[in-house]
């Protein structure tokens, strides 16, 4: 079972997305801000990270940059999530080191397709 780290500060989003991913057969761990996200990710054991970009403490862009800067998390796929869908958000996320990018509200099938693509097939 693939392990996903969900970094999301909004409680409802966290609750919903984690449950929906668990139903699809993923093991989901959660962090509530960028700092916690970086700590947990560096502790290891995750196959993929879903990273909300607008986070308190350390935002998602910075957290992603930090994860890309250390060997233990350099290769872990990260999907950036933003609610703004502003032009340039996608580029910003990819530039920070995200492998892919999706907008909120999350369309689950679309997000699942991206997750599966990065994990190399349906789990």
């Amino acid at each position, binding site marked *: 079972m693939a392990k996903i780290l969900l970094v999301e500060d909004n409680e409802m989003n966290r609750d*919903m997305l984690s*449950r*929906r991913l668990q*139903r699809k057969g993923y093991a989901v761990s959660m962090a509530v801000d960028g700092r916690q996200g970086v700590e947990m990710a560096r502790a290891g054991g995750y196959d993929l990270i879903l990273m909300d970009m607008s986070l308190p403490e350390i935002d998602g862009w910075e957290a992603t940059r930090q994860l890309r800067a250390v060997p233990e998390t350099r290769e872990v796929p990260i999907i950036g999530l933003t*609610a*703004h869908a502003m032009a340039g958000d996608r580029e910003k996320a990819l530039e920070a080191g995200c492998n892919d990018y999706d907008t*909120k*509200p999350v369309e*689950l099938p679309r997000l699942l397709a991206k997750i599966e693509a990065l994990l190399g097939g349906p789990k």
Partner: protein
Amino acid sequence: MSASESGAALTAEALAELRHDLRTPLNHVIGYSEMLLEDAADPALAERRVRLEETLGAAREALDLINATLGAARGAGAEEVARLYDALRGPRGRIVAAITALLPVSDDGRDGTFTADLQKILGAAERLVPSGAAGPAGPVAPMPEPAPARMPASPGALQARILVVDDGAENRDVLRRRLERSGHAVETAEHGRSALELLAARSFDLVLLDVLMPELDGFAVLEAIKGNPTLRDIPVIMISALDEMPSIVRCIERGAEDFLHKPFDPVLLRARINASLEKKRLRDQEVEYLREVGRVIEAATAVEAGTYRQGTLGPVARRADELGRLARVFDSMVLQMKAREERLRDQVRDLRQDIEQARRDSKEFPLAVDGGNLHTGERLGQRYEILAVLGRGGMGTVYRARDLELEEEVAIKTLRPEFVSDATLLERFKDEIRLARRLSDQNIVRTHDFGEWSGVYFLTMEYVEGITVRELIDTRGRLGVSSTLAIAAQLAHSLAVAHEHGVIHRDIKPQNLLLDDAGVLKVMDFGVARLAERTTSVTEAGLVLGTPAYMPPEQLMAEQVDARSDLYAAGVVLYECLTGQPPFQASTVMSLVAKLLTQEAQPPEALNSEVPPALSALVLRLLAKKPEDRVQTAAELLEQLAPLG
């Protein structure tokens, strides 16, 4: 409907934020509904599916409405936003109705949280459009309350003094009340002239300026403000009922910050005012920053001029940013410099006392020994008149003389004929003197000229009235640590300057170190020893000219001499200052050399308990037999001396 029909468009950022705030609860409604639908596959749960499908449908409709009004590709006016809020009430009502109908159902969700999830959907629907918000939209204030709070800049954070200039009493009143409600302090003026009077008398953060006014119109007032250096930086927002491009362009060209149409939209007004104030705040910050940079530069100039008082940078030093750090570092550096200067002053004062004492004690010191080749009153060439003999050394005699051309006293050193008989050597010596002439420093006796008259070769130098360190030690015995440090610092400085210019002294010894009455040390004979070089080696004819006691092994052995050889000699001088005797003493040159090569000097602190161990160790490092074991440069010696004094 075009943006201009509903007032000017909101900024892209404001729109994005609004879009986000509206989509988030919908995201929750859709997400939870989809999740619950997945659980409701059982045919027995058909009714539940219907309700959840209804919920989803309503939520998607709401999403479409939001995207249609607030799509990133188009601008939206505040009135459109208000209409959107109104339109969202429909879908919201349907969501609430569908979910409420499901609530009495017993909890059998897959996660055991069915009821809780329904409550979450209801909560999200409530956040989409607050149910308490006003009903049908009026034409003047259609915006529901939450909207202003979504504006990027929070009002209240930027309370400001605002001047409203409008000839219409009603407009003035409406504006004043609106702005005051936002927490601003407001003054009003009914025409251009009184506006300018108010601006001259008080300070404002922002001006709202009507374009069409009798007499002095808005354009003229704007020009007056922007033409006045003290008012120029106050942002001006123009207000006009005119909606034609040329008048907007005219305002912007004359320096207006922004332009608002009448009747203006209150939300837009607030947003623009906040944006202008924020811009002004940033600009003020920048101006203040530059002013403080100026203060630091001023302080640096004051330090150079010696007029800096510590703490002058107080306000700058309290800043939390890098400029503040610079100011703090600067202040502490100046403090250290001052402390060091004070210590140096104390040392020089001690040295001066030693000098005065030595001069009193050596009244009968035979300074003016006769016996040179030249006699008092004699002229050297047409230019120099001999006044007195100052001393005699291995190379020749030193006279005090008057430069008749420049009418000042100089020192003249004549060279014994054997030193100048070799043409090659003489050329090399001239090269050295040419180099030495470039040295100009308060711790170095200036070399003026090299000349020849009637077969007498001579050097002219700056004349320094004072005594040599040799005389000082001879009359005072060993010197105190403080006086020695004063000598050491000045000697190291002079060597640093000379070495930097490629000049090696080769004959540093107490006899060549002059002290004037102010305690200023001046090193003389830079370059002169070059002439004696060929004959300084003991290996040649056993004749050692120069002063073997101050020579390092490599010089005595006629090996490569470099700057580090001068540092060895400096070490011997300091050793002698501290202990009253050179590190090695012997009756013949040969036994001296033997001692020097085979024995280690006793640490100065062993001979004088007042010598601090660090200073003692530093002197021993200067006396290392191998050049590579010594302090390597005079500059480094200066650095090492600094913490000792």
